[in-house]
């Protein structure tokens, strides 16, 4: 399947690294007295990422964040942690921002603007601002361009994406049961992830018999909105080599690559086509590898369908065969190319993509935080027994691919490698 010229221009291939990763807990709501603002969550996650990298406030001089007017800003987080910034930017955006901002971080470091960038996303996605526009915002007046959307009760992500999902079923014969396997696989992974919010395994029948939210999406086809912050620290591979963790480098990055007419992409078909159709032609040549060489995928699972659509568009299977691919066992731990081994947004928690990059960094470090026992050196000894409650480390992965999703018309992607 792979048709990649390994001698193609490598740009900054393997020159930059993810040197630190940090998370908070994944929760839906807080116990009294244990609440957090998004500022508090962000400080917690960025601090964890610095500790993970083995660096201090003096070693971080850049900061990037993304939000949809639902979060805190870099100056507060840097100030709280005693970080003096040479660069910061707080960007508008949700899903697919993670990979794009990692690329921006590489660019600003390459330009000499700073040395080390903490990229964070902090959200009270359950307790404060829910993505679907629920609560007080549900009754907000409808004005201007929104008259072509919310005036029709067409505004949440599931409602907006449903015509793409439905048309895929119509054109390719994709079935609800095939797509449900994405949730089944991710729930298996989450059952081996002690920090996952939902860690019970589910069956195809559980998914297709759960209540219908917006056809073709059942409740269990949709991700879980949670309260959390996440952070990755980007720096040069040279610097990262001297930090605490095994080196994980970036081979290729694509940011917010889009279809034509992204204002209303349904005008420019095929509507079953998603942005990966365009992004793959940047991702694979710059990485110098193709889908066949990838050991683990992180295809964004806002919905079961989004995982499937991106895997086929990036060439892990032929267009239209995503239903067969995701229901074949390939995407499960123990399969040929597991997807979202943390349980992803469907099970672990909703982070707008950052947690899926964090998980793949852990996989490439060979240091997954499952329940495997620690050896004499304090590091876990992985068993590769993927039974419930067991291991979720993939055996010696070398390459991962994250496929970030904002909407059918926009996506980002990232190929990471163990070492350099």
């Amino acid at each position, binding site marked *: 399947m792979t048709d990649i010229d390994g001698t193609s221009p490598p740009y900054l291939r393997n020159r930059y690294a993810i040197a630190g990763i940090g998370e908070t807990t994944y929760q839906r709501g807080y116990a009294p007295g244990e609440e957090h603002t998004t500022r508090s969550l962000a400080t917690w996650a960025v601090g964890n990422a610095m500790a993970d990298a083995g660096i201090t406030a003096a070693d971080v001089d850049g900061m990037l964040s993304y939000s949809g007017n639902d979060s805190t800003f870099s100056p507060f987080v840097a100030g709280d942690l005693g970080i003096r910034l040479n660069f910061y930017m707080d960007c508008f955006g949700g899903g697919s921002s993670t990979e794009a901002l990692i690329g921006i971080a590489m660019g600003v470091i390459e330009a000499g603007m700073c040395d080390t960038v903490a990229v964070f996303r902090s959200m009270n996605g359950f307790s404060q601002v829910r993505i*679907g*526009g*629920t609560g007080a915002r*549900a*009754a907000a*007046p*409808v*004005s*201007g*361009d929104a*008259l*072509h*959307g*919310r*005036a*029709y*009760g*067409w*505004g*949440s992500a*599931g*409602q907006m994406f*449903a*015509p*793409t999902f*439905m*048309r895929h*079923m*119509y054109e390719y014969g994709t*079935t*609800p049961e095939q797509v449900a396997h994405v949730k089944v696989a991710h729930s298996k992974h989450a059952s081996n992830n002690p920090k996952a919010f939902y860690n019970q395994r589910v069956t195809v029948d559980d998914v297709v018999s759960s*209540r*219908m*939210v*917006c*056809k*073709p999406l059942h409740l269990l086809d949709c991700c879980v909105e949670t309260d959390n912050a996440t952070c990755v620290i980007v720096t040069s591979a040279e610097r990262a080599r001297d930090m605490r963790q095994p080196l994980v480098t970036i081979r290729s990055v694509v940011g917010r690559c889009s279809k*034509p*007419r992204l*204002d*209303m992409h*349904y*005008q*420019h*078909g*095929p*509507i079953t086509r998603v942005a990966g159709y365009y992004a793959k032609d940047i991702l694979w040549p710059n990485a110098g590898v193709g889908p066949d060489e990838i050991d683990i995928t992180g295809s964004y699972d806002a919905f079961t369908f989004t995982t499937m659509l991106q895997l086929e568009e990036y060439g892990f299977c032929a267009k239209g065969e995503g239903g067969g691919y995701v229901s074949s066992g390939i995407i499960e731990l123990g399969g040929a190319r597991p997807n979202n081994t943390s349980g992803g947004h469907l099970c672990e928690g909703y982070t707008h993509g950052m947690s899926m990059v964090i998980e793949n960094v852990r996989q490439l470090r060979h240091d997954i935080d499952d329940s495997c026992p620690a050896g004499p050196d304090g590091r876990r000894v992985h068993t590769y027994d993927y039974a419930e409650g067991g291991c979720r480390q993939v055996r010696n992965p070398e390459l991962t691919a994250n496929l970030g999703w904002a909407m059918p018309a926009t996506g980002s992607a990232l190929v990471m490698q163990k070492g350099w």
Partner: protein
Amino acid sequence: MSTMPQGTHLGMPVSIDDLDLENLAYFRSCAEGVFRLQRGRRSGLLRYPPTTACPWTGDREYDWVEVEPRGAVYSYAEVHHAIQPSFREHTPYLVLLVELDTQRGEPSEHEALRIIGNLVTADGELAPPEVVAQVGIGTRVRMVFNPASDEIAIPQWTIDETAEQPVPWRYPE
């Protein structure tokens, strides 16, 4: 001082800023009972929704042109869990993506004018469940207008009773 046109649609306050000439013209035309789209002067192509330039040429000059508002359902969402209060008593409701007969497959194979709207009855009420259950990909529909005020009407879709109807494709039950 704003003279922003305002109205009420399904109990929701709706408005258009008086700076927003494109949306004002679009919805005012709907209030007159005529469906008009912008046609770029350079490209001669119609476009939806209203935009500030021609997506094919970048041309900012255009004319509003009356368009026959008939077509077939291209895809849809069937909402069972409404988020907005105005829709809660109407579930399940359909959001239809309707491909117009006009300019279908132009200027390239997969392009078309695909217009969003709810499935409504001929008199503009959100369709009841037994009507929702009849409609799917392929259903022929025509436009009706829901007045929100004297100046704003929301275009909607109803089953075209004059058309020969194919057996529509629906989500498998």
